[in-house]
């Protein structure tokens, strides 16, 4: 299955206007400065936001088509969506959170073993660390047997060591997943490490030269300097 999208949406400071596609077993990393429309794009794929114009096609299903007035609700797209935080329901323990929408509740134990959080299954989300919460959020998304996996800076709120560990685990997990994966980050190092394909997005548009400019430009130079500082640092790790 391949996800193919062409999206236009008017935002307050700029317009989103991108086209891309991502095939099964492939990870596309969407990268760009913060506030550049990456999250809006991924929310349109999830069906949480409606584009002004465009199409989203998944395999032979049409999820969105502005000319034919088709909009499939997020409930029916059957995808996994992990964001920085707030995936887990505070009133449920980790096991119940992961099993919340599981196709087969018995699989959750296996996922917990894989993500090394089996010993925390009875804990509530506020009783575990941020990294453990994100591991559980990955289990929650995967237990649903998603047809498409959307990861919106899932490890950005974590410390460097935890982030690198999870990044490596995700890379080794990638081979066993059969769905397309779209990963959002503003970290160039992360993008180069994980990606099969890279889609740089700046102010809502595809900008293939962005990474090169960001790495080579001196800090303090030009308008992208602020966004450039962090990726430059991350190359050190």
């Amino acid at each position, binding site marked *: 299955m391949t996800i193919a999208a062409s999206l236009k949406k008017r935002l307050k400071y700029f317009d989103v206007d991108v086209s891309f596609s991502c095939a099964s077993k492939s990870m596309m990393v969407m990268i760009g400065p913060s506030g550049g429309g990456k999250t809006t794009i991924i929310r349109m794929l999830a069906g949480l936001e409606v584009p002004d114009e465009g199409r989203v096609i998944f395999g032979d299903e049409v999820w969105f088509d502005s000319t034919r007035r088709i909009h499939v609700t*997020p409930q029916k797209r059957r995808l996994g969506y992990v*964001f920085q935080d*707030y995936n887990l*329901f*505070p009133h449920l323990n980790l096991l119940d959170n992961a099993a919340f929408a599981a196709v087969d509740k018995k699989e959750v134990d296996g996922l917990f073993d894989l993500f090394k959080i089996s010993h925390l299954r009875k804990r509530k989300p506020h009783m575990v660390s941020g990294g453990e919460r994100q591991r559980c959020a990955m289990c929650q998304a995967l237990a649903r047997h998603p047809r498409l996996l959307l990861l919106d800076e899932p490890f950005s709120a974590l410390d460097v060591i935890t982030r690198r560990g999870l990044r490596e685990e995700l890379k080794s997990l990638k081979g066993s997943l059969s769905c397309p994966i779209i990963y959002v980050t503003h970290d160039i190092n992360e993008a180069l490490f994980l990606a099969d394909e890279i889609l740089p997005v700046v102010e809502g548009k595809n900008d293939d030269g962005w990474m090169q400019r960001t790495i080579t430009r001196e800090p303090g130079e030009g308008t992208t300097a602020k966004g450039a500082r962090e990726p430059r640092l991350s190359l050190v790790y």
Partner: protein
Amino acid sequence: MDYLALYVTLKLALVTTVVLMVMAAPIAYLLAYARFPGKSLLEALVYLPMALPPTVIGFYLIIVMSPKGLIGRGWEWLTGGSLLFTFLGITIASIIYSIPFAVSPMKAAFSKIDRRLLENAYVLGLSKRATFLRVIIPNSLSGIAAAAVLVFLHSMGAFGVLLMVGGSIPGETKVASIAIYEAVETMNYQAAGMIALSFIPISYAFLLLINKLNEDSRP
């Protein structure tokens, strides 16, 4: 002591609380999440009973519940009886009188839930209704309990609105606050004092419960 009046009061407060918890939840949901034209008008209307004198509410309730009024006529056609001066009549009055105290804490509790949690529930396949039952309600339990306690206390203290709609029929519409008033009217201070005294531990215990719930809801 007028145990019968105390019994009617507690029964009325309990029925009002149970009915209002079910009724107020969808209203609070709409006010917390939905966007529609005229929302602020609806919100003000829901809170209006809090801003009106109880006798004004009572007056309009008499108008609509009387055998010539819209609701009174419908009720008479259905059952052949009257709504005024009945327990059902004062229950309706008490529900309307206490609506704001049910909706306001529930709306506050619902609004505190992060929107992303709800969106995650949608992505995981839950309908809006299922999200309400499986995510919103379980994460607002302390707010709902606070609403229940407030409604219970507020309807225990209702006086003017009940007197107008229900009068003072022992065992039917004569609640404790009316019994106190009548005892004082007839200079029976001992009887009034007994009922009044019984309110203090009940109300005090419920307020302690509210404080406890507020502490629990803090993360």
